[in-house]
């Protein structure tokens, strides 16, 4: 008899294991109905965003004691979170209420005729006049807004004042790219250090310059516009900076987010670098020795071009699988679209807020770790360029296009030098059209 018990037990265990998956789901559903607080799930790939959201939840709970929220946040690695969310939305089950999606991946989630994301027009439309709408268009399709960004990501120039002073260059006199290149030659001649670094395996060097001249890798309809004259000219300009004018070097490690680059840059090896506003966080975190030496200035301009562009970004979205869509919408609006929420993106995250009226608020000039590092004039500098920021052309092929720009175009032209700008951009364009 003993033996048969073992059999029965093992079968029970087997069934229990098989049923474990289903059981878990029921539990969460029950928990969310329990008590007076609603449990919401949030997926992100950025630990900092968790802190921001937790703060927003406690603000919300103080203001709305009748509609309390408990936010359960899962922080995953970048790729894993995007893949998990994609699969959950594709299969129609298992998605959280709220999730972060990076701009480079966003097109994947609104591809079909029935996106798994909730349309946010009813919370965006009332505050439209106060928002930098160029940043909202990036997450829109057919006039419907699906995500709300954390920041503008205005492209700026970070100068190492110590090196430029040594070379006798006045950074406030660098207005155009010609000024910048001339200053670069002076820096190289006087100090022996390169004026800047250029990414060869990612797109943060070339892409903003294309956008500043009104160009992009896709056109308005989402077709390739890789090989237009502006793009060819821009890429040639970077190639010349590297190999003809010799004022730039390829970024060590290939891109501005590699550990090698941070270590190298931290030693004060280059006089400047252009990156979006959110790169401030990288300086503060990974290049502590440059504290007090880096100043932020507007980008040099092209004749007839824009003063800046919004680069990168991460949108918070609501999935259609959420059981509390209305509540989540109200919460998201308060957390990210209100003036208070927008100001918090600066005070907590060091981001440039998406609401224009937040920019002139006194809270923005209060000292924090960013003003300690870069000085107190960050926002007065930025106010002069922010109005100029427009949308990017983010079509269905955007993820593939950016990937081509990174791994093929930039690398083959700027590092390997196996192709001319025209050849590489033409090839990328043909490649994208064939997909």
């Amino acid at each position, binding site marked *: 008899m003993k033996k048969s018990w073992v059999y029965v037990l093992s079968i029970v265990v087997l069934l229990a294991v098989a049923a474990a998956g289903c059981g878990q789901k029921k539990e969460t559903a029950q928990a969310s109905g329990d008590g007076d607080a609603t449990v919401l799930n949030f997926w992100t790939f950025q630990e900092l965003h968790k802190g921001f959201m937790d703060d927003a939840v406690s603000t919300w709970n103080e203001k709305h004691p009748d509609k309390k929220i408990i936010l359960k946040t899962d922080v995953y690695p970048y790729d894993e979170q995007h893949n998990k969310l994609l699969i959950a939305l594709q299969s129609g089950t298992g998605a959280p209420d709220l999730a972060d999606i990076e701009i480079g991946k966003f097109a*994947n989630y609104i591809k*079909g005729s029935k996106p798994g994301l909730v349309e946010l027009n009813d919370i965006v439309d009332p505050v439209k006049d106060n928002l930098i709408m160029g940043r909202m268009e990036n997450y829109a399709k057919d006039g419907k807004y699906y995500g709300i960004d954390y920041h503008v990501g205005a492209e700026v120039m970070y100068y190492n004042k110590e090196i430029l002073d040594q070379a006798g260059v006045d950074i406030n006199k660098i207005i155009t790219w010609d000024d910048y290149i001339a200053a670069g030659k002076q820096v190289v001649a006087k100090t022996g250090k390169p004026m800047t670094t250029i990414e060869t*395996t990612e797109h943060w060097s070339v892409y903003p310059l294309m956008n500043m001249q009104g160009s992009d890798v896709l056109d308005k309809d989402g077709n390739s516009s890789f090989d237009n004259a502006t793009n060819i000219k821009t890429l040639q300009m970077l190639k010349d900076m590297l190999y003809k004018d010799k004022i730039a070097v390829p970024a*060590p490690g290939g891109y501005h987010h590699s550990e*090698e680059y941070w270590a*190298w840059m931290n030693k004060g090896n280059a006089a400047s670098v252009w990156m979006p506003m959110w790169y401030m966080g990288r300086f503060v975190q990974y290049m502590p020795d440059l504290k007090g030496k880096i100043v932020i200035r507007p980008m040099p301009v092209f004749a007839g071009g824009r003063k800046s562009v919004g680069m990168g970004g991460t949108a918070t979205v609501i999935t259609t699988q959420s059981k509390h869509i209305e509540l989540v919408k109200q919460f998201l609006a308060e957390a990210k679209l209100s003036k208070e929420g927008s100001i918090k993106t600066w005070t907590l995250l060091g981001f440039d807020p998406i609401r224009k009226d937040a920019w002139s608020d006194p809270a923005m000039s209060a000292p924090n770790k960013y003003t300690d590092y870069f000085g107190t004039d960050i926002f007065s500098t930025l106010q002069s360029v922010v109005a100029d920021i427009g949308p990017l052309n983010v079509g269905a092929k955007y993820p593939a296009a950016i990937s081509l720009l990174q791994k093929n175009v930039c690398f083959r032209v700027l590092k390997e030098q196996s192709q001319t700008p025209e050849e590489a951009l033409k090839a990328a364009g043909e490649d994208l059209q064939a997909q």
Partner: protein
Amino acid sequence: MLGLIILSKLFTADEEVFYVLEPIARTDRIEKQKKKHWGDLFFSQTAAPYLFVLPFVISFLIFFLYPIISTVIMSFERIDGPGDVTFIGWQNYTNLLNPHFFNAIWITTKYTFWTLLVLIPLPLLFAVCLNKKTLPCRNFFRSAFFMPALTSVIVAGLFFRLAFGEQDTTLINSMLRVVGISSTVWLQNPNTAMFVMVLLCTWRWLGVNVIYFLSGLQSIPDELYEAASIDGANAWEKFLHITIPGLKPVIVYVLTISVYGGYSMFAESFALFSSARSPGEIGTTIVTYLYQEGFNNNNLGLGSAIGVGLFVLVMVLNIIQLWLNGFFKKEVD
């Protein structure tokens, strides 16, 4: 459904079980004997093996067969989102014939070739050395060689990425500079990047193959070597005429799994380039290409087609390889 059919087939093969499962028109007798028969099912020598393999069969059906079938189906579809699926025939396979896929095949083939060239002779040599009873610290070396296989490939890849950085101060460059070789940009050049990938693979899998060969060596009887010594054979001749033929089944096995392992390589490249995307596609393997298309570009149809392509390729290669090694001949005999 398929599982149920197979299961009922398994059970109906046994007369007794058939009786239990199909109680037609004999209900009265069954009522009396029911308890006894369920007990019989538990202790039946015919049924027990099936019961024991049941967990495997079920997990195989759910986690392997079902995904395989649905991959084949998806490779004929364009999948835009939930409920937004279009049948497009061979379109994904036509799209597959592009430079990226051919480049991925080429890179993966080169990688597999180099891993085979290194990971068969080298572990064989180590195994023969480690098998010598005269070697000091034998057991230490055995476990030391095996240790890397226990590490996570992501951790190992991260270490290799930083060790093979391009600065003068990185581990490898600083060592090379001591002997007068100038710094190299390892991970942005097709040849050096391939070298690092093969090195990472060698570091990780050497010990595993050593274990395979060691177990093979232990099955070769000592008498053969003794007899050869008496006939005046030297060490090299013994190795060539006794060790190699004696290890042939193990070599064929290692070759087969290495071909499969080489062609399905993903994690090494992913960790070294910190994404599935490598500069100039110098580290794009078939599986990283699949990952890029399927997940990064949300083109699951094309991703599935790549997967089917990889399956066909590896099957064909391994069948050729096994046929060349006489694997099928034995079966005919």
